[in-house]
């Protein structure tokens, strides 16, 4: 298995689109590209499982390492572990659904798909980077298309949102970059490197960890809606086009969570211990406060964006708990939230395209005319409120159990606060679904058509992912075990 294939497919598809003329061909090519991506990632997953059953146990599989700029010891070093494969699977699912959902984009089709695929290229690269600067490079690749997607194809107050999103994410990137340089310069001159695995084995002194950890965690935290740096989330998501929101919430918020875990916590375990309580406090606030703020949102997209803040709080809470179970929970929550929220945004897009409104109060009784879309919305909502059998349950329960492993009152209070959000979530989800799907149908919606095949396919892809995780979570749980164990080992050392 050569990881360059996975990196190459989205890039080549994107470049191929540039020379095409017919929108129809562009859509098809993008779809085949996305299918190929999914196929390759599944293949990667199988190959990884084979290697593991054969008894291999490295920190990174399928490594490739080329000197990129040897003066500064920068390498093009890629490799994957279970956690990155889980995230890449998520990416592949969301990309496929995103490409399908965008089937009837009319404006600048070529550029649109180009940017979508470029974003997925950045995401894959990010998840397989084993070198900090390479990781940063791919992180930035994943940011810029988002700005364009919102500013060009967005709706509403799109310039404001695009600027806000880009500036806040760039601010986060700046913190990350300073943090990376901090790690580089804090190591003795003869051991300086950007290589993640090497850095993980040669820990920095606690003093420098204490300074650098907030930079890295805060920087990645901005991506993952860390309270109080979450305000780009509602505006960015609501202005973005459908696939843009899906990618934003489904993939790019996960870049943050992954970075918090795989970079900040892995490389700076002592720093993580120092700031754990703060992280827990902030994420517990985000969970409950995001949920309450969701309660009174009037716009479906704003509602889902605020609920994303609440759900991403679980990721950060799991990371802050510093137990293996909670780490597993955080990773599971990333996957779960990615699938669920992508489905949510996809369905909101489908409904908006027909009703031309996103205001919850203006809708009603859509189950009658759009049974498929509304059922998908309902499934997304159920996953969001943690219904067993869908992905959210698995992730949230793992975070709760992980949080409860601590005996002290502080951790338990935070866990209970997080648990409370499941009630609030139920309230806002049912409030929205009750208004949108149920009740008497509004006259002006009585003649709407249900979704088209491509929209159906998009929803089915995501629901399949959610069911695969929700009905039999153990495979995913086992997939990420080695990665979280690796981080736990670093935390336990010393």
């Amino acid at each position, binding site marked *: 298995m050569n990881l360059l294939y996975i990196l190459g497919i989205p890039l080549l598809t994107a470049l191929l689109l540039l020379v095409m003329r017919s929108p129809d061909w562009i859509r098809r090519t993008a779809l085949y590209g996305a299918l190929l991506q999914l196929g390759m990632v599944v293949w990667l997953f199988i190959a990884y499982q084979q290697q593991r059953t054969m008894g291999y146990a490295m920190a990174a599989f399928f490594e490739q390492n080329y000197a990129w700029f040897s003066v500064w010891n920068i390498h093009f070093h890629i490799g994957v572990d279970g956690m990155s494969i889980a995230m890449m699977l998520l990416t592949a699912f969301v990309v496929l659904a995103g490409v399908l959902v965008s089937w009837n984009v009319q404006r600048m089709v070529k550029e649109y798909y180009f940017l979508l695929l470029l974003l997925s290229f950045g995401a894959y690269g990010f998840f397989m980077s084993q070198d900090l600067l390479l990781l940063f490079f791919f992180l930035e690749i994943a940011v810029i298309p988002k700005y364009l997607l919102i500013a060009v194809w967005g709706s509403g107050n799109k310039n404001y949102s695009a600027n*806000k999103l880009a*500036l*806040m994410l760039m601010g986060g990137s700046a913190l990350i970059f300073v943090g990376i340089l901090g790690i580089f310069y804090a190591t003795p001159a003869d051991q300086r490197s950007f290589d993640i695995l090497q850095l993980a084995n040669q820990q920095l002194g606690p003093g420098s960890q204490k300074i650098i950890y907030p930079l890295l965690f805060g920087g990645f935290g901005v991506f993952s809606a860390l309270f*109080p740096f*979450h*305000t*780009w989330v509602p505006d960015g998501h609501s202005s973005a086009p459908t696939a843009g929101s899906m990618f934003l919430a489904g993939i790019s918020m996960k870049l943050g969570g992954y970075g918090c875990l795989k970079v900040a916590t892995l490389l700076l375990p002592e720093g993580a211990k120092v700031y754990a309580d703060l992280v827990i406090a902030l994420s517990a606030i985000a969970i409950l*406060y995001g949920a*309450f*703020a969701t*309660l*009174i*949102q009037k716009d479906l997209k704003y509602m889902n964006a605020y609920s994303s803040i609440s759900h991403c709080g679980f990721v950060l809470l799991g990371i802050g708990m510093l137990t*293996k*179970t909670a780490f*597993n929970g955080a990773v599971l929550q990333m996957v779960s939230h990615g699938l669920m929220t992508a489905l949510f945004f996809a369905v909101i897009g489908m409904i908006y395209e027909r009703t031309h409104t996103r205001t919850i109060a203006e809708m009603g*009784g859509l*189950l*009658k005319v759009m049974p498929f879309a509304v059922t998908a919305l309902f499934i997304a909502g*159920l996953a969001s*409120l*943690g*219904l*067993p*059998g869908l992905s959210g*349950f*698995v992730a949230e*329960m*793992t975070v*709760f*159990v*992980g949080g*409860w*492993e601590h005996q002290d*009152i502080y951790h338990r209070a935070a*866990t*209970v606060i997080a*648990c*409370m959000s*499941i*009630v609030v979530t*139920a*309230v806002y989800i*049912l*409030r929205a679904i*009750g208004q949108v*799907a*149920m*009740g*008497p*149908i509004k006259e002006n919606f009585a003649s709407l058509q249900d979704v088209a095949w491509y929209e159906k396919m998009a929803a089915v892809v995501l629901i399949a992912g959610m069911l695969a995780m929700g009905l*039999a*979570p*153990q495979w995913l*749980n086992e997939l990420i075990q080695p990665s979280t164990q690796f981080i736990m080992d670093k935390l336990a050392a010393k």
Partner: protein
Amino acid sequence: MLSATNIALIPLLPLLGFVLLSLFGKQLKPFAGVLATVLILVSAVLTGGAAWTYFFANGRVNDVYQTIIPLNIEWLRFNDQLSIQMGLLLDPISVMMLVVVTLISLMVHIYSNSYMHGEKRFATYFAYLQLFTFSMLGLVLATNIFQTYFFWELVGVSSFLLIGYYYDKPSAVAASKKAFIVTRFADLGFLIGILVLSFYGGSLDFQTLIQQLTTPHTPALDAANKASFLGVSALTWGLSLVFIGGAGKSALFPLHIWLPDAMEGPTPVSALIHAATMVVAGVYLVARLFPIYAISAPELLAAIGWVGAISAVIAALIACTQTDIKRVLAYSTMSQIGYMMFALGVSGYGGEAGLGFTASMFHLFTHALFKALLFLGAGAVIHAVHSNEMHDMGGLRKQMPITHISFLIACLAIAGVPPLSGFFSKEEILLAAYQNNTPIYWIALITSGLTAFYMFRLYFRIFWNKPHTGHAHEASAIMWLPLVLLAVGAAFAGLIPFGELVSSDGKALHSELHLSFSIAPVALGVFGILIAAWLYGKQNAKPASIQSSLGGLFQAVYHKLYIDELYLFLTKSVVFALIAKPAAWIDQHIINAAVNGSASITQKISSNIKTWQSGKVQEYGLYFLGGVIGLAVLVLYIW
């Protein structure tokens, strides 16, 4: 008969039905009812076989009923100790519940074929019923407390779907949301309770958990007793939180508010979910963990008994005033569940002390039969007169003889008239209460009189009172067949020697019926029936005058003691106005304003700086000069 395949098929067949009907509902629509009924029939037959084998052949070893676990699969491992197992657990109470669930579900399926005939979403209805049956069976068979929670949520969502089945009716939507959210709130307690119990018990598995937390002086039990929060031991916290979950599902006071509203669902659904099976899940949960409650936290168990007793009497009072026949039945259900719960509360563990446990399970069993019968009968009536309100009914005994007789049997059974089934289970409960907790016994006795009164108020107002004027006619054979079958059950189920089969410790419990003890409750019941006959047998002005003489008291009870209004106040004025709105306000006006503020400060600074870039060469020259002079001064004098 007790092999893993056979037992696993019992829940899996309805699951298959759900999958088929929800994916191919359109194509299968004409056969949806038949398909679903056949699947449940197979499940019921398998259950019957399993129950027979368990109770009379394989289940008993050395006179003790064993816990058999034919299958246990690891579903999700959290850490070294805790993992969610999905499995099948057979012990007397789970086998008994299997029988109840499949039997009532089968009856409801048969009945629905006619009742729901012609509905547009016929297939969807059966898909939901199948989903519910699957979840309920999974809950009953759970080997692991998290498995219980898993299916607990699933029954909640199927209940939501079925209450909201008439989704274009705003009241149905509101009721479905209310049911889900209230039970969800209780489930929060259940979840945290699971976390507490599993932390100390070191396992999520029922058997290990019970063993760890009941054996005296194990490190687990000591730790759970020693750790305390707000002066209450961790064990008590955990158990009471789990009980809150059960109370929410079982509609115990004060979490009962969703149950009367849940009657918005189709009537067969009310029979299945909101009378016979799902609402007793809370009782089942406490029964499942009964050894822990009884051995390690007896004070808490007594408190649970009180909650049950209060629910029983409050619900009975409210039931006397309602005019919607389904709501009367809903409050009656709540009252009877209160009975089951306080029966558990007054029980001890093992031997003669466990009489309450047996009585509770016995009442659960008989109640399922007669309450399902009552609901299905009410459904037939509603089907005939197209209204839920008592004043649209009356005098229906001529038009609907079969419904009338079966309804009468059910009413007599719930009123505790011998020798119908309700008499035996109620006697046992009262006996257990009498032996252990006299105040509860008196409450129970009063409730039993009230029960007879409101049930016969219902009966007389439907079938007697005034002559019928409409065109109501007897239900179709598909609808009355289940009524007759259930009526037979409700009449004779009391003769089952229940104590021999189900007891707290698995050993047979020989309970005797003391005739002298039965005099008081039976007399009270008959007295209640007579009052109801006197007031409602014929249309007259007495009920109205009593109503007005009670004045405010009647109004308060009629308005369900204003508990709904209290909740509405709490959610609207506290949660929405005092928490959610401020949270959103803070987000917009403080956090977002800080972000926008930093942007606008940057913008202001830059717009001030940019005027320096005036485009005038001479100004630049001046700056340049200033800079040169400044540097010169710096270099010459300061450096």
